[in-house]
């Protein structure tokens, strides 16, 4: 039985996604008598040499396309996969993986599930686990119809570096002529503002709706800067456009793994909490002792978060000058 990984090499951060897939394969398909290969799309010839390091399987089809557009990728997959009897397609986490998994399954008359955290193969079917009920619940689904197309949930596995690519089997396709039906008249790519990697941050300070104003958020960000901490926000703050979306923490944003996380003025909704639950120490500052975050933290202060953070910054700065 064959499985295939589908990777979009047009995105700058494809390596992280490839390492996630590598980890997922190792965990859930490692011992099965399966052969896996990868279909890797790319647009720029300059990227071509580095592509080998992105392949989590023993063979790869490198497919050159004009650029990332789902219609183009789906057409390209149709060309390369027409005669294949692949039973499982694995798509990485992220926007593109989720989109392609569902549409490709529909076109292949298979079944799909996105944001998958775990899977098990069963006779004739596949069981897969994902979140539901605004992330309060883990739901298990059975996929009934092959091919099974699943995309991974962000941060569900620890990345595993890809090694030993010397004997990689490579097939090349040039499908840069596909144009996706001319649906898109022009495209402009806007790269994400250089988002800092919060994964290994020592201290992460996150501000929520409890801060109430843009000015308070600005001040909290300044305090974070003074303490050498990374700064994040919850969804309502991002929706108010008080800070750019790339600072969003949670299932829709960054899944952080800092040593210490201070959640200020945040209620601790499950979809947010998923973004900080891997922190070693969670500190909540909230005026409401009943707030969900208070139970889900290691340490809590019941008080106005701006007042506490202001004092904390002063103490921190004082201590730093003392030590210097």
């Amino acid at each position, binding site marked *: 039985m064959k499985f295939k990984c589908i990777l979009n090499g047009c*995105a700058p*951060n*494809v390596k992280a*996604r490839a390492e996630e897939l590598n980890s997922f394969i190792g965990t859930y398909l490692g011992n099965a008598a399966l052969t896996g290969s990868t279909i890797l799309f790319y647009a720029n010839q300059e990227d071509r040499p580095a592509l080998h390091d992105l392949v989590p399987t023993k063979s790869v089809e490198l497919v050159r396309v004009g650029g*990332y557009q*789902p219609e183009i990728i789906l057409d390209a997959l149709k060309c390369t996969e027409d005669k294949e009897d692949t039973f499982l397609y694995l798509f990485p986490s*992220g*926007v593109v993986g989720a989109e392609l998994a*569902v549409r490709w*399954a*529909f*076109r292949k008359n298979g*079944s*799909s599930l996105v944001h998958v955290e775990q899977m098990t193969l069963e006779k004739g079917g596949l069981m897969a686990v*994902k979140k539901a009920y*605004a*992330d*309060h*619940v*883990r*739901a298990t*689904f*059975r*996929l*009934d119809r092959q091919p099974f197309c699943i995309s991974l949930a962000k941060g569900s596995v620890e990345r595993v570096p890809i090694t030993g690519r010397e004997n990689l089997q490579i097939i090349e396709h040039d499908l840069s002529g596909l144009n996706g*039906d001319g*649906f*898109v*008249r*022009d*495209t*402009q790519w*806007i790269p*994400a503002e250089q988002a800092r990697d919060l994964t290994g941050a*020592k201290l992460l300070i996150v501000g929520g709706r409890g801060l109430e104003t843009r000015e308070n958020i600005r001040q909290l960000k300044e305090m974070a800067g003074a303490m050498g901490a990374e700064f994040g926000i919850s*969804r309502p703050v991002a*929706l108010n456009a008080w800070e750019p*979306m790339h600072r*969003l923490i949670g299932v*829709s*944003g960054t899944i952080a793994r800092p*040593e*210490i996380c201070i959640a200020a003025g945040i209620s*601790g909704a*499950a979809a947010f909490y998923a973004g900080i639950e891997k922190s070693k*120490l969670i*500190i909540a500052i909230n005026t409401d*002792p009943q707030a*969900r975050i208070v139970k*889900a933290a*290691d*340490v*809590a*202060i*019941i008080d106005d978060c701006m007042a*506490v*953070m202001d*004092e*904390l910054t002063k103490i921190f700065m004082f*201590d730093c000058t003392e030590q210097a």
Partner: protein
Amino acid sequence: MKILVCFKAAPNVEMLLDEDWVVDKKLLIDTSFVRNDLSAHDESALEMALQLSDASRDLGMHVELNALTVDGPGATPILKTLSALRFATAVRIEPGADFLFQPTAVASIISQYIRLHAPPDVVLFGSQSDIGENAKTPLLTAEMLGWLCITRATRIVPTDEEHMTVTHQVDDGHARETVRVPCVISVGDAPCTYLRKPTLRDRLSYGKKPIAVLAEEDFQLPEETETLMDLEILRHERDAAIIAGESPAAKAKVLYEDYLKPLLSRP
């Protein structure tokens, strides 16, 4: 230009207490006693449709807004609000069963509705519903209609009668694309898209319009290809130590000395 927005009301589950989280034999969780809100992304989709209509008017183009939900009578207050916000139609299709985890059925009903009634130029969706979190309905609808699809839009600007410029999230950034209609667009995390409130006068003049209700029996349902097998409630408890103190300064001092300093000073 004619726009249809598909939305799903969702109970605000953040209001449930720990003891309310119980899975019954039919794999359902009773959420009937908490307030129904719009799914987060659907609220953004509805507001973006209104903003698109405002911007088109400034360009001398007319936009007709329509709203559709496949849901029980609990969605009626939202439909009435949409009427008051001058949506031309606000339609509810009464489902025969609970479709929380059946995006194929929902997409099939929506695409049949679109084919039967004068098709819109653009169908707007949220990118995922709050409770089902399937993140599939817009994509499946696009496939069923054979229409093109843009996902996770954060900004839509009208260009002319047949085109619009859509900024949308892709991996590691955004893309801004001018696309032609008809198309399906799902809305992602879009700043400044809290749904506006209708004026009292519009509530009185337009909000009283009866809501059209159709029955699910009028539609054919496809076979589902995924089946829900189990639900497990997640509980996050870390037993927080509460730092007591007379003032914010006193509490901050304990936090710093006892917790932050020892961890931060480690290499």
